């Protein structure tokens, strides 16, 4: 990977915000408060790279993924995809650009239309984008893609309900790669699968990335899975970015207290290693009423007075390792 290919990110997200209005009373009131699901998120994604986005429920990672894809229209911010301002595209242009970004969903049971055969499901993007003129061409392309993801081509005419969760995720993968997109946003694609199937699907996704060169935004709450598949990791909490780093940097040289707590909370299948467990007290604050200053300060074991007053900026601590905490520098050796 030369420096040239890293120069221009294929996706540049700046100050992305998604606020959901909460209406208090019905007819005549104005929207008084907002659920700040995504609150000023910025990052860059390079060709062929995997950015892991990790956080717990309510942190806004799914909303962020959908906002980037414009499944939910962002309230504010800029999304530059391959240099173009994605948020202002309309109509035909938008449809063309959409062929270059795709999405994978969490629920293998709800992400496939139960009334369509899997051949039709995988072919759908091709038909919407009118890529081919004849049915034959479409069918051949679909069969090829099925082979690549490890689905037996004789299943072409079957319906989703006849497949297991792992196979359905493969169908989802097939649908996502059928247009050879440059970017795939994966929203918890393996969380609903059994452990032994998870590893199969993750291996497949990596293999495809190597051969097809697409970038992934891999959203998950599972730090172990994230570590395996990501090149860089972004940690979110209550709609804001806490830490961004290269994979190894994040796990070996963790700066943010939240990331540390997350890492220590993961139950490890290992009886020997004794770890110091950081158990966070309290519950997640409501995204409708986030804490002042640093949003994490209410549960932070290192919180000082300044944390409730001033929101920390995302600073670079070398090597592209960003952290939003007043006391990050103290963690560094």
């Amino acid at each position, binding site marked *: 990977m030369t420096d040239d290919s890293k120069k221009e990110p294929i996706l540049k997200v700046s100050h992305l915000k998604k606020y959901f209005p909460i209406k208090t009373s019905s007819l005549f009131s104005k929207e008084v408060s907002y659920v700040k699901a995504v609150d000023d998120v910025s990052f860059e994604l390079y060709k062929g790279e995997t950015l892991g986005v990790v956080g717990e429920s309510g942190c806004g990672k799914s909303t962020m993924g959908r906002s980037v894809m414009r499944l939910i229209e962002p309230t504010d911010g800029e999304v530059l995809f391959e240099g173009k301002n994605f948020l202002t595209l309309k109509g035909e242009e938008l449809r063309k650009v959409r062929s270059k970004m795709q999405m994978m969903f969490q629920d293998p049971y709800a992400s496939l239309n139960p009334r369509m055969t899997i051949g039709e499901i995988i072919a759908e993007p091709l038909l919407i984008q009118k890529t081919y003129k004849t049915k034959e061409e479409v069918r051949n392309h679909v069969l090829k893609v099925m082979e690549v993801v490890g689905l037996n081509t004789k299943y072409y005419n079957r319906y989703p309900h006849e497949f297991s969760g792992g196979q359905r995720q493969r169908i989802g993968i097939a649908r996502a790669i059928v247009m050879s997109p440059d970017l795939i946003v994966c929203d918890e694609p393996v969380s609903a699968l059994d452990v*032994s199937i998870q590893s199969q699907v993750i291996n497949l996704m990596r293999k495809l990335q190597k051969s097809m060169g697409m970038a992934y935004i891999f959203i998950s709450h599972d730090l172990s899975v994230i570590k395996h598949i990501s090149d860089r990791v972004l940690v979110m909490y209550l709609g804001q970015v806490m830490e961004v780093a290269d994979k190894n940097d994040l796990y070996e040289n963790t700066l943010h207290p939240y990331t540390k707590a997350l890492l*220590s*909370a*993961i*139950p490890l*299948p290992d009886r020997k290693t004794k770890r110091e467990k950081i158990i966070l007290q309290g519950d997640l604050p409501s995204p409708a009423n986030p804490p002042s200053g640093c949003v994490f300060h209410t549960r932070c074991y290192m919180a000082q007075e300044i944390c409730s007053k001033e929101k920390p900026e995302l600073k670079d601590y070398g090597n592209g390792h960003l952290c939003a905490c007043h006391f990050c520098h103290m963690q560094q050796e």
Partner: protein
Amino acid sequence: MADNIIEVKDLKTYFHTDAGLVKAVNGVSFNVERGKTLGIVGESGCGKSITSLSIMRLIESATGRIEGGTITFEGEDLLQKSEEEMRQIRGKKIAMIFQEPMTSLNPVFTIGQQITEALLIHEKMTKEQAKERAIEMLKMVRIPMPEKRYDEYPHQLSGGMRQRVMIAMALSCKPALLICDEPTTALDVTIQAQILELINDLKEKTGTSVMMITHDLGVIAEVADDVMVMYAGKVVEKASCDEIFEQPLHPYTNGLLDCIPKLDDDREELSTIEGMVPSFDSMPEGCAFSPRCPFAKDICRNKMPELTQHGTRFVRCFKYTDEWKEDQA
């Protein structure tokens, strides 16, 4: 002899569906020692949840039936008891908490009403006494401001809080055995850590024995003293927690441990277990795991191995029997 609070022998629960006979639990035997935690681990469809529902005798549906075995609790066979007798036991002697605290709590009653319901049914208390005990329980599960929470409704609480309420309800009548069916799967990892620590703590304080059912081997490592691994309705390995992690015997256990992505593991590709769990109507002859087992020989494909003892452990695999060496195929 160990002091076992519950002894399950050869439990069989079958479902008679339109599509065929589903042997969800097919000859499962295990014991839970007093004051200890038994972890039951397996993937979806292995029968672990049905096992716990069978113990509670909550399988009386049109299609499901407990077809055999005995469940000895406090010296009596639960399978011989009448529904009325079971009702005395559920909630009082054996309590259960489920995966989805969202749906296990009734949304139209307050927390307080739901905790005291269990108390008023099983113990002779006045309403005031029940309320006092309920608030005590809420304190014990570390819910802040328990008096205030007493009057709140489930939707006002977060997932972690609701699970704590479930635990409070379960422990309110001081049961001898607590069955937890995937209690933390739906929770965030930091909340999960809190809940697991809480369960461990309470176990020490109250001396309750625990059955922890989960698919997450990490959770098992955190809380279990003994472990039982299930696959396709049968027990494939039983050992103490340390033994299982140090040296898993059964190829399935081994495969499971191997394919979990680990934090300190830098391999490019994850190990996998090829194939899928067989569906009930295409169960292989012989060992159910043989189609996916890297060590499978002919004998595995033709005969079902028995659960054999190895020192303090049990494993259901021909690799550890004499017949293995004889079969060269």
